[in-house]
């Protein structure tokens, strides 16, 4: 006999906050519903036709004052609710800067995940407990959506751009990963497992994965093999921006606008360099559209990101 569940397990740092709002709204809704239904029932009985209840003259001001009263009450209550539910979790939008980066590529009808050291999984994601995990996600075809109900996170994953989500798992266990944007025939079967392990178990698991180059090393190899270093290396004769320590920094563009060097910007620059010419440079970078796949773009971005961290002494 299945236990009747009402709420999913709270398995992330965000889950208690979401649930608090949920319970608060339930309490409010229960109160309002009981009040309305209660009044309906009481009035229906008391004022049924022919009942002896008093029905004399109502003073005129009642209508106006009640109206203004409950309109204002509703307005201010809802205003507060909008603030409480919306603004109090604004900080949850930004992932912690030391979050472990996982790359996710969604396609009809599976989830492909990749760890920073190169370990790959299909329809599964092993993560350590108690550590923030940042997901950089893209789709190979249609819009999918990454949903982990136990963590209370959801993010649509779009083709042609990067979507970001993050979580910090607080409970060891296995949880559903569900696609929640209709993506075709097997949309309902695009289910995976997120396995949260203790740090020790996770290190063990990671070490036992088939050896593959980590994302940064693969990105570095691509950087050379695709000819990027021919221009972007410091010793090159071609005048091209150096990419050291630029990740996350603002970039001035030739048309006067600004952009931030993030994963999406890097992707666009590789695929459509003439769209965002950097100020002070000529528009001579060739486009790699059609020559570079989604997963390779993720690796290149990871490599350029690692260059940006070189200043902070993380790498040799």
């Amino acid at each position, binding site marked *: 006999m299945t236990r009747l569940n009402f709420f999913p397990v709270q398995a992330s740092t965000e889950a208690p906050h979401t649930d608090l709002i949920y319970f608060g709204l339930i309490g409010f809704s229960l109160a309002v519903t009981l009040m309305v239904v209660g009044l309906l029932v009481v009035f229906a009985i008391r004022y049924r036709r022919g009942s002896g209840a008093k029905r004399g003259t109502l003073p005129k001001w009642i209508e106006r004052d009640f109206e203004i009263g409950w309109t204002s009450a509703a307005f201010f209550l809802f*205003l507060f609710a909008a603030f409480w539910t919306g603004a109090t979790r604004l900080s949850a939008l930004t992932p912690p800067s030391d979050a472990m980066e996982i790359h996710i590529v969604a396609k009809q009808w599976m989830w492909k995940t990749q760890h920073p050291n190169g370990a790959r999984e299909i329809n599964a994601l092993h993560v350590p407990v108690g550590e923030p995990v940042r997901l950089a996600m893209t789709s190979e075809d249609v819009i999918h959506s990454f949903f982990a109900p136990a963590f209370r996170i959801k993010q649509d994953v779009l083709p042609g751009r990067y*979507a970001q989500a993050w979580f910090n798992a607080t409970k060891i266990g296995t949880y559903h990963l569900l696609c929640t944007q209709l993506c075709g025939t097997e949309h309902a079967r695009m289910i995976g497992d997120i396995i949260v392990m203790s740090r020790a178990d996770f290190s063990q698991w990671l070490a036992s994965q088939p050896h593959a180059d980590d994302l940064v090393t693969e990105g570095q190899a691509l950087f050379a093999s695709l000819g990027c270093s021919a221009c972007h290396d410091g010793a090159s004769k071609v005048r091209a921006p150096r990419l050291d320590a630029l990740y996350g920094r603002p970039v001035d563009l030739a048309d006067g606008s600004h952009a931030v060097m993030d994963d999406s910007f890097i992707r666009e620059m590789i695929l459509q360099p003439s769209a965002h010419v950097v100020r002070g440079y000529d528009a001579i970078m060739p486009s790699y559209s059609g020559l570079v796949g989604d997963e390779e773009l993720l690796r290149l971005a990871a490599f350029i990101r690692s260059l940006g961290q070189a200043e902070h002494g993380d790498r040799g």
Partner: protein
Amino acid sequence: MTAAALHDEYPPQAASYLRDGHSLWSWLASTDHKRIAILYAISITMFFFVGAVAIAIVRVELVNPNGQFLSDDTYNKLFTLHGIVMVWFFLIPSIPNTFGNFLLPLMIGAPDVAFPRLNLFSWYLNIAGGLFTLYAVVAGGVDTGWTFYTPFSTMFSNSHVLAAAAGVFVAGFGSIATGVNFIVTIHMLRTRGMAWFRLPLFVWSLYATSLVLVLATPVLAVTLLLVIAERWFGFPIFDPTHGGDPLLFQHLFWFYSHPAVYIMILPAMGVVTEVITCFARRRVFGYTFMVYAMVAIAGIGFFVWGHHMFVSGQSPYASLIFSFLSFVVAVPSAIKVFNWTATLYRGQITFEAPMLYALGFIGLFTIGGLTGLFLASIPIDVQVHDTYFVVAHFHYIMVGGSVSAFFAALHFWWPKITGKLYDEAWARFAAILMFFGFNFTFFPQFLLGYLGNPRRYHVYPPEFQVYHVMSSTGASVLAAAYLLPPIYLIWSLLYGKSSGDNPWGATGLEWTTRSPPPKHNFLAPPTIETGPYEYHEKGEAPEAGPRVPHRAQSEPR
């Protein structure tokens, strides 16, 4: 002159609209708004049946977590069919094009709508659109969901998206034509003395609805056109590989589709006011606020579409603004719920079927509206977006709300439209059965949603099964409840007692003429000297006496 005296004036040859021609052609070519209303009533009933059968099959399938007898593709096509047919071919035309068409000229004292031939043309546009859509079904179905998200609908789906999109596109022009017709009718055909703030709230609801129809539907038309252009001609517009943005589709689509839900609920709200005032024998509480609330819902409703896109990748700052506005749009709805409840205070309440449906509406709409607040909160929406929570929310409003109001209207105005009485006992039984069946079907879905059961899932993790079984059981009760009205209403048509002109003792202008009305509605254009809902003197309470209108709207003070 009293209403009774007016009736004595009707010559025997002021034949009812039902007797004005008996051939099929006299119905299919009629420009009489009452006959066009009946044409719509027949077509929406047929579409409702199609949409209902589709979802009945789905609910049977969902009893088993691994499915039962459907393929994944067929399942996806069935819920898509349900959504498309129910939204565009049942809910949107339901109250405005049946009861709105029938009653609007009657309620304002006019002989017909402003453009009767356009009215007939609207019905044919609706039918043509419906035929395109049914062709899509028969040819193999559509599997994109009623929301047609790109790039799946434009570049990946192997189903008949074009035919379905074309069907909705064509039907949309019928909606726009109805909106234009109603707006001009209300502005220019009100009879002498029928000032704006003497209009019944049902008329105001049709006005607000028509504004939304005229302003929102064209955006749907252009969105579908672009989907057709991308899919049929291969013109990239939303295609990210050519630099387009699939989110653009979502913005355009929801810019229409959110106001569309107000098209579906505003007329229902108008009906509820008409019914509650009549069966509580009371003037409506706060008439002016009720008017402004409906106009506010229609207006603010245009600025909340982004709450369908909180997790889509749109800017978090835009999301905050949409969240705030979504909370604000709930305020006028709350006002209406309070005003309906207050209308019962010191009334003389009776519980005929229309009243049961109207009271059910208030409760179910309140629950549906409150769950809308959950969805307006960004963190909660992150959890429940695209899950069964959303499905439950909108069914509480659309079915618990609009469909309840539709049945309230059907029973309330049945004597006016047909001149017959329906069987009250069976009608009450059906109303109560519907209420329980509905709650049993949809309340478990709130729980499913927060637990994480996504919507549009053919198969689901087995721990959710108990709720699906509850929901499917409730659905079978609901289905039985829906089968009752056709039976006893057809019986009423054939064998029902004659109702007399105003069996409920209601005060609206429509009740001062014959039941069923003559072809040109009134013998002479009535003159109005009072406001609506004069069930008792202002400031006093109604009497418990026999059912007579205290003062019909056409009677002088």
